[in-house]
């Protein structure tokens, strides 16, 4: 196989056969309940050093409650897929959980820049599309996929992209390595106790993120009866056998929105932005993560039912999601 050119960046090396063996040996094929607390899910399925992909981000249907639990449990040396992510990456870096980031797009401020300059975090440049595409490759069980971008740019040079000759036409084409993260975190609208999951609305890559990952944790706004779920099989986008943990987390996307259900809490997003500007991320994390023992407690103590009701009431568009 002649490689015409290749980037020099570090990347999580694909190994489809090793991934297959993991799936064979660890996945539950029978219908068993996977409902557990966020604490148990993160404790059991996220280890220091893991590669973590999450979909989508703190703004829209992101697994925000799960990410706060990762911080609360002080996971370390994570490598994250920052495809289309907001201040999630900042929080994880500020909390010292992350030391490598594959970048598609993320909100960057002084927290990440300082961490990079001080050598506490290493960045690897890709793009949003390239990262979701690498997850797609991982979700197809392949070692790589050809793609028709990245070529010619510095992203090519500093990433794990290669340029080969198309075996059919002989013309040059790029390939990127599949990504099979150790952990996939997806926040969903509804799922049953086994993990059959529905996701409503346009989305980044909820399916690829779940299907490519070794360990899959879903947080869900609602756990619905499996018989009811089976009345609409086309709505199931993630099948139960891919799922290791189901965490019941109403407002699990807070402070982001779950379209059709509640609006983003813009006030909170501003508070987080200001915390970074003022160098007060520690205080922010203390308040929103460490001072409480759970997502539920955070909602009760720091958000309050009144605000939750407002966020719900203000999301007037239900069409296409819940009607």
């Amino acid at each position, binding site marked *: 196989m002649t490689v015409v050119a290749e980037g020099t960046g570090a990347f999580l090396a694909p190994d489809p056969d090793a991934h297959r063996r993991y799936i064979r040996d660890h996945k539950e094929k029978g219908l068993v309940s996977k409902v557990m607390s966020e604490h148990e899910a993160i404790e059991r399925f996220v280890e220091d050093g893991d590669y973590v992909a999450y979909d989508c981000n703190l703004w829209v249907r992101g697994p925000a409650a799960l990410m706060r639990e990762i911080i609360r449990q002080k996971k370390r040396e994570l490598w994250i897929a920052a495809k289309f992510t907001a201040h999630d990456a900042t929080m994880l870096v500020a909390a010292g959980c992350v030391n490598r980031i594959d970048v598609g797009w993320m909100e960057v401020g002084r927290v990440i820049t300082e961490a990079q300059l001080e050598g506490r975090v290493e960045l690897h440049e890709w793009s949003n599309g390239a990262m979701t595409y690498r997850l797609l490759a991982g979700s197809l069980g392949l070692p790589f996929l050809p793609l028709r*971008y990245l070529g010619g740019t510095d*992203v090519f040079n500093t990433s794990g992209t290669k340029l080969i000759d198309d075996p059919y036409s002989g013309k040059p084409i790029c390939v990127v390595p599949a990504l099979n993260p150790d952990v996939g975190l997806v926040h969903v609208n509804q799922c049953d106790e086994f993990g059959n999951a529905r996701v409503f609305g346009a989305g980044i890559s909820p399916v690829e993120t779940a299907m490519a990952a070794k360990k899959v944790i879903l947080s869900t706004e609602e756990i619905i009866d499996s018989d009811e779920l089976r009345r609409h099989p086309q709505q199931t986008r993630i099948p139960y056998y891919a799922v290791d943990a189901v965490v019941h987390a109403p407002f699990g996307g807070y402070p982001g929105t779950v379209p059709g259900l509640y609006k983003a809490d813009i006030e909170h997003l501003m508070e987080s932005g200001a915390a970074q500007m003022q160098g007060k991320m520690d205080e922010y994390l203390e308040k929103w993560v460490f001072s409480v023992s759970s997502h539920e407690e955070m909602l009760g103590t720091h958000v309050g039912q009144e605000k939750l009701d407002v966020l719900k009431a203000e999301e007037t568009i239900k069409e296409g999601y819940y009607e």
Partner: protein
Amino acid sequence: MTETRTFTDMEQIITTSSRLMDGDKLYFTAIGGPPLVAVLLAKRLRAPELAYIVEDGTIAPQVSLPAPPFLIAASGASYRAAAWADMNTVSFHAGLGYIDYGVLAAVQVDEYGNFNSTFVGPAYERPARRFGGPGGANEIASLCWRTILMTRQQGRKFVKKLDFMSSPGFLDGSAGARERAGLPADTGPWRVVTEMAVFDFDEETRRIRLKALAPWATVDDVIAEMEFEPMIGPSLESIEVPSEEELSVLRAEVDTTGRTVRGCWITVELDGENARLVEQETSAEGA
């Protein structure tokens, strides 16, 4: 009879870009910022049927105006779409050649339309200022037939050498450079829009070329705000300043919080087709 009009540099960039858009073409934009605002403005004022695709998988939505304040995280952004898909799917549609124009913002642009949205500074590991990253720009600039780039007219933005090439223009400008790098044939940057100028690209050399000028600016004004000298087109067209209607729609309906359109204020005195610069705010903060 003269009239005084005041608008931001970004409002000019957005309105100029929006006037390049047609209802029978398909557009691909990042999820927010000036490109999306320009598309919404075109759709509201001139081309209600215009369809666009967003990198989050939204296909041809019908955002009802006034737009919600934080559109990037609002269900209004994908309201009454033709389809809700995902990020991979829409980039496949671009890869298949369905998408005529990509619309993007850039931190730095070079003379071949390559651009940077990753960092400025001495080295990747040591950024002076780090930005969000390529985002969806690399794929949009590679896969759509033509790319419209939006940026401010500043020397630090039109650079001889990018600190990092996040997304491709014509690469080194040689014939077939994009194809040799694996990108689809016959694609590339089409226009670069600033508050002072519109550039296209010379078909032979692939170098950026001044095509149109704001009525209150000169060629020298433009060149003064570039690290390199652009080619000058055979007949320079004149850019119209934003109309009262455009500004009103932008401010009252499309970007009601002013998050996107804010920038340095420009005040001009209009007299028929002529315009005289009254005042141009210069501010590092506006960039």
